[in-house]
């Protein structure tokens, strides 16, 4: 596997954190730091009890958008491998939604890039969540905090 390797997958299939971690560290003796983020379905959001969640996306645009976010992160920090997996379709409570991992020689770079990728993903990548709640189906509203989080970079 090349040193600076981007991996992006958008899929209905669940991911396995152990396998993803293995892919980050296997035969990678130069990167001393790996930072991961996993986002999961919460049981409460915006005050309603969530039963399950459907993730819609814009297939032709999604991977292009994620690749562009990773490219921007690589321009800002010295990164080794980057892996990004995002689920679509029907998800239950506590299921995994998104995995972002970044390896680097420097932990500071790995932390910053992982957080940057999540902040941009939250505000630019074409995914939309619809929650099936005890009060009926509701499209999740975008969060002003996410826009603020993005603006700092």
């Amino acid at each position: 596997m090349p040193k600076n390797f981007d991996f992006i997958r958008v899929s209905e299939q669940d991911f396995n954190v152990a396998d993803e971690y293995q892919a980050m560290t296997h035969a990678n003796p130069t990167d001393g730091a790996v930072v991961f983020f996993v986002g999961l379905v919460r049981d409460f959001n915006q005050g309603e009890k969530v039963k399950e969640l459907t993730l819609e996306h814009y297939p032709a645009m999604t991977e292009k958008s994620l690749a562009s976010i990773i490219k921007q992160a690589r321009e800002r920090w010295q990164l080794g491998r980057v892996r990004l997996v995002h689920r679509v379709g029907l998800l239950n409570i506590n299921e995994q939604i998104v995995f972002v991992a970044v390896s680097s020689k420097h932990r500071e770079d790995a932390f910053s890039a992982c957080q940057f990728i999540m902040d941009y993903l939250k505000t630019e990548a074409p995914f939309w969540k619809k929650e099936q709640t005890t009060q009926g189906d509701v499209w999740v509203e975008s969060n002003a905090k996410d826009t603020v989080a993005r603006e700092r970079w």
Partner: protein
Amino acid sequence: MINVLFFASLREKMKTDSLQLETIENETIGELKQRIMNSKEDWQGTLANNVLAAVNQEMVGDSATLTDHSEVAFFPPVTGG
């Protein structure tokens, strides 16, 4: 022709996931929004606020101009991750 796509809550509001429209030379995204909203009673105001746009799968502002065969998408603010 240009191909226009709608996603998520906007698709539900528009009651369609796509439109095929004539190309108008040098039309901007802002003008296209107006054209769509004016074309049907039920669509009035649907694209006025809080709608993002992409042309050929890249996010653009209202001043972006369209060319023949552009793929235009309109959607609400994204909520992935």
